[in-house]
């Protein structure tokens, strides 16, 4: 069944956004270090900085943004139905999703890690693997979640939760012996709760994060790509670098001068 298109302006998204004077960005508010509210109630995190890079490119002002709060399962529908101009919410790039939305260039590559309670029954990845089906792992709800855990721990039981805090809570209340999720999130959490948790020392399942926009508007997609790529390789690199250091506690590799590395 065909339904009428929405919000598609005749002159294209780029002109629409420019004439509106602000960028509408879809993201979440409960997942540090990606997107969450700080103690002042402001939306902060790496995804937020990425959105600000785009706004800076549009208006020369990183703050001309209206954030639309959305749950994970609202990311693609909100793009498809035109509720937001762009979504930056740790969207994992997959070919299936690329059939429905357009992915921008990636801005981070993630892996999955296992976090354990310090001094708990299992010391590291090897001990857990040996324990077989006695281990329960808590993860975020996802169709791939079960398979992802089984790739690392083939016999473990899997419990899925709809938010990160519940996933961690399962670990704290002894419902699960390990939590498996994005390495970046785990690292951030362990830093906030120093000494209480340990990393299992095993990471796997690489995945790429991009922003998403609506299909069928090459000018808009190109604009966002330019803005993001130049922040990782060109004139605006210091902004990207500052955000990276702030949220991941590491320094990203400097772009090499000379032959552009993306064509190497």
């Amino acid at each position, binding site marked *: *069944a*065909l*339904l*009428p*298109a*929405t919000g*598609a302006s005749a002159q294209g998204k780029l002109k629409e956004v420019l004439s509106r004077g602000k960028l509408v960005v879809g993201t979440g508010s409960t997942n540090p270090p990606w997107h969450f509210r700080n103690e002042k109630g402001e939306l902060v995190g790496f995804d937020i900085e990425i959105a600000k890079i785009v706004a800076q490119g549009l208006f020369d002002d990183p703050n001309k943004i209206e954030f639309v709060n959305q749950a*994970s*399962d*609202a*990311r*693609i*529908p909100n793009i*498809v*139905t035109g509720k937001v101009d762009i979504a930056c919410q740790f969207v994992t790039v997959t070919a*299936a*999703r690329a059939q*429905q939305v357009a992915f921008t260039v990636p801005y981070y590559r993630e892996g999955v890690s296992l976090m354990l309670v310090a001094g708990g029954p299992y010391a590291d990845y090897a001990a857990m693997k040996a324990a077989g089906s006695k281990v329960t792992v808590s993860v975020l*709800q*996802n*169709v*791939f979640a079960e398979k992802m855990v089984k790739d690392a721990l083939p016999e473990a039981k899997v*419990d*899925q*939760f*709809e938010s990160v805090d*519940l996933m961690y*809570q*399962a670990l704290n*209340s*002894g*419902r699960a012996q390990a939590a498996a999720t994005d390495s970046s999130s785990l690292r951030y959490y362990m830093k906030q709760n120093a000494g209480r948790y340990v990393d299992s020392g095993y990471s796997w399942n690489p995945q790429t994060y991009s922003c998403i926009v*609506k*299909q*069928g508007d090459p000018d808009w997609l190109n604009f966002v790509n330019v803005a993001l790529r130049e922040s990782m390789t060109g004139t605006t690199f210091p902004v990207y670098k500052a955000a990276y250091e702030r949220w991941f506690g590491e320094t990203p590799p400097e772009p090499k001068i000379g032959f552009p590395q993306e064509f190497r």
Partner: protein
Amino acid sequence: MEYSLHFGAVWASFDKLLSGLAIGLGLAVVAVAIGTVLGLLAAFASVGPYRLLRWAAAFYVSLIRNLPLLVLVLLAYFALPQAGITLDKYQSFAGALALYSGAYLTEVFRAGLISVPKGVIEAARAIGLTRLQTNVSVVAPIMLRNALPSLGNTFIGMFKDSSIAAAIAVPELTFEARKINVDTFRVIETWTVASGLYIAACVVIAALLRGLERRFPKF
């Protein structure tokens, strides 16, 4: 550009949705069964002669009925282990829903009890039935007949509330639907099918309950 509906991805996981529906129904049945016992006890307590029991029943009802079920479920799953009681996710959800439905059913049964004519109770005492026998043989059946329609509504409500179990990873219908969403992002299609299943189940339950009601003698 157009948004076109594709149900293919949803049909591919239809068996998951069906098993989710069955789990939701099963949880609702168990919870309402336990809740019925709780509700009966609390309802008789609330019209009985003992002030302390009346007070306890009123407290139970107003505490539980005014809390969002989600909070109860989260507490049963995450806080009870800290008190040394560890139930699995099915048990703790069924327990929370039982507690919740018990509070609603208390009100249903209490209304039913109040509608039992006083004269009928006296007639039972007059032929020599004890208080307990009167409650069991005379009051309870009349009350149940009066309460049957509301009982059905409560059951349907509890079945719908089983969707909250998704929060603690019980794989019922809503949980499965949201999983499909995360995968395919076919939100409209998924919810159309899921809500169709909910409505169909509710219609069937309502029809069964009406049938049950008809089979009860009219009085």
